[in-house]
């Protein structure tokens, strides 16, 4: 059995006010893949992510994580396997001290205090944030907050990392550092993003969502080069694949 498997079959969901969000989504992500989830605003990316850790329950179809379907009884296990990093770090960091926040997950897993400490310090070291551990989260910069919020998830040793817009609101250097950091992880990664250059750097595969359906699913390079597909999905080529603004050449 592989913990790293994510399988979504015929997933449908509409919000209580009747807005349809997902309209029969299918895909299967296997061990160690790094997959970008791209699509225009409102295409259903966030709704899909909320299904991957069981916050939303499928109205039709199924979601399986590591060969286990998500049900009420498997929720705890699934949430340990799928580490989710939110778009706004302020939502993720809710305790008054960075250390406590990173230790929150392992403590809730019921691990012994020594193990909690070990995992917390390891996770902080992995993202290069050991020096921040005594600081209150609201005093950190955007990049530091992002690093710490990734640590809060890493401390639970997830097999799958799910991220919503990891590079939003970061300055260019912090963005570059984050991409470098993510490239070193060997987790299965699912990254919902509008940052097409990040897709180019990090993801071998891309899934394009359009109006709650999978419009395309394939190697990232092929998809990023398909202008027609990108246009019809409200997307654009990565800047590095677009022509030079002065001479027009690639």
């Amino acid at each position, binding site marked *: 059995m592989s913990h790293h498997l994510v399988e979504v079959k015929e997933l449908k969901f509409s919000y209580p006010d009747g807005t349809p969000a997902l309209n029969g989504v299918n895909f299967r992500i296997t061990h160690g893949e790094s997959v970008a989830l791209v699509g225009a605003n409102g295409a259903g990316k966030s709704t899909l992510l909320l299904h991957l*850790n069981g916050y939303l329950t499928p109205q039709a179809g199924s979601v399986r994580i590591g060969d286990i379907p998500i049900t009420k009884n498997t929720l705890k296990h699934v*949430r340990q396997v799928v580490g*989710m990093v939110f778009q706004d770090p302020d*939502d993720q960091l*809710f305790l008054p001290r960075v250390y406590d926040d990173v230790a929150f997950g392992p403590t809730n897993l019921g691990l012994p205090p020594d193990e909690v400490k070990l995992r917390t310090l390891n996770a902080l070291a992995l993202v290069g944030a050991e020096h921040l551990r005594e600081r209150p989260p609201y005093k950190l910069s955007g990049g530091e907050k992002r690093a710490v919020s990734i640590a809060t998830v890493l401390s639970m040793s997830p097999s799958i990392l799910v991220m919503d817009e990891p590079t939003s609101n970061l300055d260019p250097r912090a963005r570059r550092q984050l991409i470098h950091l993510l490239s070193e992880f060997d987790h299965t990664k699912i990254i919902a993003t509008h940052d097409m250059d990040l897709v180019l750097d990090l993801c071998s595969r891309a899934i394009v969502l359009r109006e709650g359906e999978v419009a395309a699913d394939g190697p990232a390079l092929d998809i990023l080069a398909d202008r027609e597909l990108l246009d019809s999905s409200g997307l654009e080529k990565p800047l590095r694949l677009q022509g030079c603004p002065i001479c027009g050449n690639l």
Partner: protein
Amino acid sequence: MASIESSFFDIGRLDVLSSKETPIHRVDARVKVLTTIYFIVVVISFGKYDPAGLAPLIVYPMAVMTIGNIPIRYIAKKLLIASPFVLSVALLNPLLDRSPALDVGIFVISGGSLSFASIMAKYVLTVSAGLALIACTGVDAICAALARMGVPEAFTVQLLFLYRYIFVLGQEAVRMARARALRSFGNKGLGMSTYTGMIGHLLLRTMDRAQRIHLAMLCRGFGGEIHHAPSSGIRPSDLLYLAGWSGLFTLLRIYNLPVWLGKELGRLI
């Protein structure tokens, strides 16, 4: 706008102060909380015409601030910010209650003036003691202490989150106020009607955020309990701290020190 922002972010300074290392900071948080609660009860129990009896109690917040290396000016500023609320409550007393209560030579002090002074004294004592407690303990340590003393988790978690998110909510409010100010060109915007809308909007944003935070907590296995770091345990010196202060408060409550001093002085003269 700048003044709202700066006074708001100044709250964060309590955190910085609470990480200092002084004898007061090292006292167990539970002991400090209990001492402060007892202090507040004693202060409140004084009658409304007895501001003089309250005066000696100032020794507690002063001692905590001095030993705890907390700038008194900072606490005093915080007291000033909240004082209009208390003033509005106390201000009518001298006007409503004009019955003579105290005869000092040629002056006659009315009961209203005495109760005014006593409300203000109680305000200064209780709030400065509370602020001094936070400044030398830290909100998270206080929450952990309350939880360990048996206060229901629901309250301590609420308190913890209130303190964490007051900054986020405040920033959101500041951003909205700034956006309004920039487009009202020094006028009053559209007056009250915009404000009511903004407050409603802020509430909706807050609820949205609360939902996202809850989701983030669920994702990390939250089951209704925040696990606080274990405390180092209460030492004999902590008990001495508690006993010493409570003893002093009780004595000052039973024996009115200024009156006694006055009598003694009178006798000597």
